């Protein structure tokens, strides 16, 4: 489990999921694909970490899920943001902004 270029920076996966879901409700693969595409292939999220993270977030109340049919008429579990999730995204984004700015300052110093 060493650090691998494809792995998401530790502790940021939930934030990325929240951000992705903030656009629209999606199923699990949709989230993984969106993260991969937007990051231009830097981050690859496999289901072994994505799905447990979604379950944890669901239990924590920041997302909720619902079975819907997909565009090609199959059943899939769609995840969507709750009010609590929106707030969590805002908090985590601003915290992350502060942290990266601080790290950047340290690295430039």
């Amino acid at each position: 489990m060493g650090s691998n270029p494809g792995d998401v920076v530790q502790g940021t996966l939930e934030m990325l999921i929240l951000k992705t879901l903030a656009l629209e409700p999606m199923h699990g693969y949709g989230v993984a694909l969106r993260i991969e595409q937007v990051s231009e292939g830097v981050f690859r999220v496999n289901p072994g970490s994505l799905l447990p993270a979604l379950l944890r977030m669901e239990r924590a109340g920041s997302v909720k899920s619902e079975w819907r049919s997909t565009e090609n008429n199959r059943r899939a579990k769609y995840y969507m943001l709750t009010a609590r999730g929106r707030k969590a995204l805002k908090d985590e984004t601003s915290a992350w902004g502060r942290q990266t700015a601080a790290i950047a300052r340290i690295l430039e110093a």
Partner: protein
Amino acid sequence: MGIFTRISAGLRALTNRGRVEREMDEELRGFIDASIEQKRRAGLTPDEAARVARIEMGSPNAVKHHIRSAGWETAIENLWQDTRFSLRGLAKSPGFTVIALLSLALGIGGNTAIFTLINQVLLRNLPVRNPEQLVTFGRNNGSGIAGGIDLGSYGLFPWYFTRHLQQDPGPFQGIASYCSFSDKVSIRPPSANGVSDMSSPAILGPASLVSGNYFTIIGAQPFMGRALNLTDDATPGTGAVVVLSHHFWQHSLSSDPAILGKTISINGTPFAVIGVMPEAFHGLKQELEPPDLWAPISMQTVVLKQPTLLTANDGAYFLHVFGRLSKEATANQGALAQSQNWLDQQIRADIRSHEGAKLTPERQQEISRITVPLISATRGVSTLRNRYGGTLTILMCVVGLVLLIACANLANFLLARAATRRREIATRLALGSSRGRIVRQSLIETFLLSLFGGLLGLGLAFAATRALITFVSHGSAYIAMDPAPDAVVLAFTLGVSLLTGLLFGLAPAIIAARTGAAANLSAGSRTAQSSGGKQARFWPKALVTAQVMLSLLLLVGAGLFLRTLRNLENQDYGFERTHLLIANFNAKLAGYKPSQTPALHQQLLERLSALPGVQSVALALTPPISAGNWSSNIDVPGYTPAPKENTNTNLNRVSGTYFQTAGISIVAGRAINDADTLNRQKVAVINQTVAKHFFPKGDAVGRTLLIGIGDVKGPWQIVGIARDTKSSDPRETETQRMLYLPLAQIEPLSAVDPTAPTGTVPEENQDRFAGLIVLRTTGDPAHSIIDFRAAVASVDPNLPLTKIATIREEVEDFMSHDQLISTLTGFFALLALLLAAIGLYGVMSYNVVRRTSEIGIRIALGAQKSVVQWMVLGESLLLLAIGVGVGLPLTYAATHYIESQLFGLRAFDPLTFSIALIVVSSMTLLAAWLPARRASRVDPMVALRCD
């Protein structure tokens, strides 16, 4: 809210396992389908797309495992799995499980049983409001009616003084008093119409006299009705009201819900029932047999059947006093010292005002030093605590040690099992199990054992506590102790069980987790077992050595207590101890007047001496050995006492045949005989101690003496000297002074108080009553009991016999705690020895099994059987030597703590120590000999073929 969704989602997942599993599968399938779809759109062939998607996802089971671990319910599932696994493991080795559970049940059960008693006797607070504020004035242990002592000596006070304190409690919130003894009274419950029914049979029950503010100051609320108040106790002779104990109300009055306002008769006088106390309340003084009812002190003459003790400016000392401290005095020492000081001032002032003008400077000095200490009564005053407190503490240590020995055994068993399970553990580690999970599984197994053991122990403790309470109660019908465990006891048992599990489970668990995977999988099982290294072999041996040490300690303790009991039983008591039957009777309760006693006594003596198998019969006030005594200061013309000298002497009044019946020999002069009647010269017999002290020249016979108690003042002429007897306690080292008076020569009328107005008619003298029949039989005295009862009933069927016992039982009563402690320490020492033997045998046999191939090689190379035997035996002997080497000094140090409990021997008793050493050594040799023999019989061919 978050926590609730988490919990409810987890619970749903646990209860709907099937659905959750299906949904998970569906989601994964959807995931992979979408992934394949995406890859196809990107231009891969369907086969390739499916292959890449599967590689990306990895094993679906691993993904599912990851998802499951994200919820808390998985931890519970794992726990449940481990528990089932452990239960299966335990069921597969029933021998181990049974021995483990049995030793745990005995260990934990013993601890729980003793703790149940300790909790009730030593730890429990009084069930009243703020019990920590209560203090007794002086020790409230003594009881009786005394005269001629200083205020507060023996914790006793006269009525007038307690009244004075009650009205002006100074810095205290309040001060109350109660009679120092609870004599049995004759009670007749009310009939159907609510009036006491004189024809219904009387019940004998202890009654406690208390001041009107007793319940207010002690802080107890009645269960129903009201408690006593100041008005009830205002005027002597009035206030015929009574508060019942819950037990009496429940058992003798069938919990009559309409009891309030009905009348019960006490000693023939009607009393109105005004209240019932709660079940847990037994008064400030926790007596073995708690009071059935409480009546105001103002009704003393009726309840005690004695002339009034409630006199205005003087009087007998018979009350105990307690107070409720102010909040400040409870919290800080300075305020407490002020309360103490105030009390001492009150006492000194009262003594001065009573002794008046005749005060010498020495006496002034003495008075200014008199102090009556305030003693905390948070847990009440308990006779049981005084009697059994030390015994119970020692027993608690003993059962604690036994539990430690049992723990050591189990730790050893588990260590051995951990060694045999190395391959299994190594396999599990290699397959990806975490060390944490292995330790957890191992601990779950030990906790299962200790909790089941604790549960069994709880059942065992209940039975054992019942037996112990029966023993402690000496056959009293009801005592205020309960074998059922309360919350404190349950918490104690749970705590002990968990601690035990941790104690014997932690080391094996850690060793199990240290197992390396690779090394153990590659080696053969035998070599793996013997490759544990020095450390793995050190712990079992250290534990066995500790067991040897502790067994030695327990054996020596048991031996010392056993020898103490033997010494107490076999010493010379100075009176007959085999053929006496003694019976207490109470003619006062049957309505006799003092003037009727000579006729009654005469009839009893005649009727009883005619019984078959009876050698002689006598009457007395107290038996040859008795805890309570009639005593007084005496005055011997011609003997000048030293200043402050205590001339207090125990008195007994006896019929003419007492000395020959009780077997007390006369060393000079003559005994009291039937010719010493009322109109003849008043005579007395003294014991050797009195003779030596007051008549050092040896001229006692023929001299006279006077007694401080007015009603039997004398002068009495000494006609004989009787042998010294152990009259108050088998352990007494200093013989008590004894003075015997002829029952027939007690004056019919009481002495008239010289300060009383002229013309006062003297009352009848209550000292004419005997209290005891002594019967000397030719055969076993217990066989005469039926005839004896019948004969007494033929004289007067209403004469209550309050207690019948052989002299042996009477003496044993004084040694009950010695019997208890020697029986129990003996039992536990043997149990400890057995456990240690099992432990030693187990470790040694396991060592032999472990070394089978090594021994096989030795024998194949020509080692003699005796050499092999000695190899095993020598190892055990070394352990024994170390155990004894460390154990002896430890035991020697520990026995010093119990020296005060011993009698007739020192803590270092060579005989006891040698026997204990021999027993421990033989046990070790026996436990080691069997494995040694097995080692010498190892067949080299079989041993070497195994691996």
